[in-house]
């Protein structure tokens, strides 16, 4: 199980967790591309701030969503993340820095946990 403390980010919603369990990462601003190619348990880095990103994260059972580059999420996006229990973060860092940081915590090959939840440690 890959685990990452979210220290390079700030919580955007009240339902965030200190550590996120994940399996890989996707960086994408095309919603249908994320739908086609994201895999369950990935962390999604995007620059969009509107509520539909949470709908996509729910559909694909993503581990967490990070708005990169200092974007400010709409209040409705935050509300939706809380309602749908999607851990939701913002970061002033650029996507590249976030990917490097996530990749350094990604050891691959282990079973994908329930999205975003470290439940056995």
């Amino acid at each position, binding site marked *: 199980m890959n685990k990452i403390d979210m220290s390079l980010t700030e919580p955007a919603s009240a339902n965030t967790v200190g550590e996120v369990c994940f399996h890989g990462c996707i960086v994408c601003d*095309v919603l*249908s*591309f994320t*739908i*086609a190619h994201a895999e369950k348990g990935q962390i999604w880095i995007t620059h969009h701030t*509107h509520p*539909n990103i949470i709908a*996509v994260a729910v*559909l694909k059972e993503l581990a967490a969503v990070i708005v990169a580059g200092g974007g400010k999420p709409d209040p409705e996006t935050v509300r939706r993340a809380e309602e*749908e229990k999607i851990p939701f973060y913002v970061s002033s860092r650029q996507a590249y820095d976030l990917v490097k940081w996530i990749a350094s915590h990604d050891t691959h090959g282990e079973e994908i946990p329930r999205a975003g939840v470290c439940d056995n440690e």
Partner: protein
Amino acid sequence: MSAPLCKKEFYIQKFDFEHAGKAASDARKLLMDYGFDQQIVRRVAIAAYEAEMNMVIHGYGGTLILEINFEYIQLVAEDNGPGISDLKLAMQEGFSTASDEIREIGFGAGMGLPNIKRCVNFLGIETKPGRGTVVTMRVNLGPDAL
């Protein structure tokens, strides 16, 4: 044909990006409550989402009807839009008639119908210029599910 075990209608408003995705999300929850296989739920939910977004962006709103039958789960998206003038082009990944404004918020990549096609066992599209579009999607249950 026997009556569906469950039928639910969702009403989709034109350019309502605030609530867009809610029908797909509600359909997903309903199927999960029924206890369907996760993979089946995921496929239906993706098809529902893309169909819903097509109605928000292109179809001037419409209705999404979810039906659970013994053999398959069916979605029918009926919109009030201008119709699709070239269906072959619309099915081509990357082709889109969406405005720059729509693309800026991450939609209109020309992947909606191809994404739907990947998720369903049956896809039927009836469209007439000026008369709207009806998209019928089925995900099989049982041994011949994808």
